[in-house]
């Protein structure tokens, strides 16, 4: 039996590209269809009925009509969650866009990954509510890597497989995990990680999000963890993450906190 002409799915809008005078091509991340693209006609006109429901970082139920080409046409959309606090704050919007860029970069089209969809929605929700937004991002990065098949090994040395001792060990992006001091010379690019950084990373990699984000992390430790995971992400993608550069700009200008009304 042929596929139905129209279908509906939940989706989070992760990318928008302008097309022609007022149309858009949207990249959506869905629970059962993975990353898909959709053509939205006249989305950029002021009277578009779908525009607000298909804004970036919005969780919506989207209806498609199958087209003859590769991209199906979006014929309707209804918001499930707008994540309003994200839309109202500069730092949170930037964090949300960083999350969406990572999802876009680490997924292939039409590869269903329900766990990753759940992680995306949970992360956007946590950004709205959790106190330490940086830890929400780190937690997302580690779980996204696991979901994409790149879980870094943080408990034992990836070369000799011995459990790591409580000392400064090394993280190697090329080896995909930690190295003990004895094996650290076996990889050309490995950077030192303090005992505290290793502990926080392991905690964030675990399942208990609320416990992980209760940890007190000062700026130096935060940067150490961020650089470790950031280096690994960059190694895997073989390019810079554009929105990470923007997050750095905001940090430099001290705009990396939620604005108090």
């Amino acid at each position, binding site marked *: 039996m042929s596929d139905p002409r129209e279908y509906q799915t939940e989706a989070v809008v992760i*990318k*928008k590209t302008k097309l*022609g*005078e007022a149309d858009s091509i949207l990249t959506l991340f869905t629970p059962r269809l993975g990353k898909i693209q959709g053509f939205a006609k006249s989305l950029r006109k*002021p*009277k578009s*009925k779908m*525009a*607000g*429901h298909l*804004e*970036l*970082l*919005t969780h919506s139920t989207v209806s498609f009509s199958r087209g003859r080409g590769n991209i199906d046409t979006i014929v309707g959309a209804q*918001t499930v969650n*707008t994540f*309003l606090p994200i*839309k109202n*704050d*500069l730092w949170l*919007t*930037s964090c949300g*866009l*960083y999350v*969406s*860029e990572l999802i*876009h970069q680490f997924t292939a089209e039409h590869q269903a990954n329900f766990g990753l969809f759940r992680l995306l929605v949970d992360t956007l929700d946590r950004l709205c509510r959790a106190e330490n937004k940086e830890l929400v991002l780190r937690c997302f990065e580690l779980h996204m890597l696991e979901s994409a098949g790149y879980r870094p090994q943080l408990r034992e040395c990836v070369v000799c497989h011995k459990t790591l001792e409580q000392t400064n060990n090394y993280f190697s992006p090329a080896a995909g995990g930690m190295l003990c001091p004895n094996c650290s010379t076996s990889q050309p690019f490995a950077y030192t990680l303090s005992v505290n950084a290793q502990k926080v990373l392991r905690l964030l990699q675990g399942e208990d999000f609320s416990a992980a984000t209760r940890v007190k992390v000062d700026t130096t430790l935060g940067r150490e963890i961020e650089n470790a995971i950031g280096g690994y992400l960059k190694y895997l993608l073989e390019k810079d993450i*554009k*929105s990470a*550069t*923007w*997050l750095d*700009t905001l940090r430099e*200008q001290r*705009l990396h906190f939620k*604005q108090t009304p």
Partner: protein
Amino acid sequence: MSKQEPITPASDAIGRLVQEFSKLPGIGPKSAQRITFHLLRSPEEKANDLAEALVSLKQRVNLCSICCNVTETDPCPICRNSQRDISQVCIVEQPQDILALEHTGVYKGLYHVLHGAISPTEGVGADDIRTKELLARLQNHTVQEVILATNTNMEGEQTAMYLSRIITPLNIKVTRLARGLPFGTELEYADDVTLTRALEGRQEY
């Protein structure tokens, strides 16, 4: 099956023009061909007029040194107009936005064109749009209000929030164009963000 040979145009001049037209936004190869053959059939003066208009566009149009709008004179007519209110600056993304605002005939202040919006995922940061020129302009203490008129999409909002954060410490009033329901729409189709902002910005009637 052997790969199909591309169809070679009847002459190099035709092929070149078709290629140039098809580089323009919204014009595909077929439209480019249609325009080229239309010009080929038109009188020579028409083609000359078009060529002259194209050359003068790049030679005569520059950016205003004050507001960064496109202009043939520097400063632009709006910045030179002594009737305009110099205490208000309206910030827009593109020169076309000025045309839309001027069409209303309501706003009498000055403008500043950013020539883009901050888009982190596309690698467009604050330094890639005309923020430095704006901040330099705000140093002379004549501006009392900055109106953020960037688009209400994610890039426009991001730009507005960023500018608000860096302009507010300069003790200048920062306002944002009202965001709510567009004229002529039906309430039932409005999304949560629009409705929330429309409710927050409601006015006595």
